[in-house]
């Protein structure tokens, strides 16, 4: 890191090699198309290179990089919020079956239920949500981070994260209700 700060640009490749799997995992939560995912990851590394002088060396580099990553993903969501690809009601057969089994009385045991279908339904719900709500649900619920961690990553205050989390869950529940109603109509 110090070598890069000293002007040795080529050494930045080691940083890219080390952190790119984590960045790809993060970007794939926010973008579906592979070209978009690659653009997001590239943007994260370019931004981190340009702002490397703002990294405080007493803080872990990974946290600093993740903060830039979250910011880039959020900007991506805000820039693409009008291009919602999937329609909420167009469920696949597996997704419909998953919902039917989950809604059936006594169908509480999820062991036999296809997890891919569940993940796909969550993806559909998230795609319909506002950028900030989607970011909050991803960080808090899917990645299972604490409110403090989310506040540190996003730069929002702890009360703001809590308020946004409450609203995000409400929006997600509303979308799920709509999805269930559309399925049976």
């Amino acid at each position, binding site marked *: 890191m110090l070598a890069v700060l000293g002007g040795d640009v080529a050494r930045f*490749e080691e940083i890219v090699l080390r952190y*790119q799997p984590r960045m*790809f*995992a993060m970007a*794939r939560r926010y973008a579906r198309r*592979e070209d978009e995912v*690659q653009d997001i990851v*590239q943007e994260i590394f370019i931004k981190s290179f340009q702002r490397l002088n703002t990294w405080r060396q007493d803080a872990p580099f990974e946290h600093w990089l993740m903060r830039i990553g979250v910011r880039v993903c959020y900007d991506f969501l805000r820039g693409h919020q009008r291009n919602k690809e999937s329609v909420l009601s167009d469920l696949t057969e597996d997704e419909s079956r998953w919902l039917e089994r989950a809604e059936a009385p006594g169908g509480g045991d*999820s062991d036999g239920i296809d997890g891919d279908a569940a993940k796909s339904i969550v993806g559909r719900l998230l795609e319909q949500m506002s950028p900030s709500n989607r970011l909050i649900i991803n960080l808090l619920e899917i990645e299972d981070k604490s409110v403090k961690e989310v506040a540190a990553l996003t730069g929002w205050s702890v009360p703001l994260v809590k308020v946004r989390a409450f609203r995000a869950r409400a929006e997600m*529940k509303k979308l799920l209700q709509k999805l269930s109603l559309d399925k049976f109509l």
Partner: protein
Amino acid sequence: MDLNKTLERLIQEARRRPVDDRVPYAFESRVMHAIRQQPRADVTTLWARGLWQAVAPCVVLAALAITTSMKLQVAEGDYAYASPNTELTENVDLGGSVGLELNENSGDSLW
């Protein structure tokens, strides 16, 4: 239907799925190429960029200054053309009013 329960189960399932962290072949080369293509921000570049950004406001200011100056010149020209008669009338009027005022003042004079 218990929406809360269904939602909780959906999120649990989504959380349990493995994260796809595959990296395309030679992606680091693409990133490094993009980084090397970025223009280096040295002092000269920043100064030149600032100068270029100042061009448009300067042109607008110059145009405003020219327009204002031309309008002032036109107004002065009009005044000069009309001044002999105007001044005379004004003088007459002024003189009359002043005269009246003086007369009135002289009538109600305190001294």
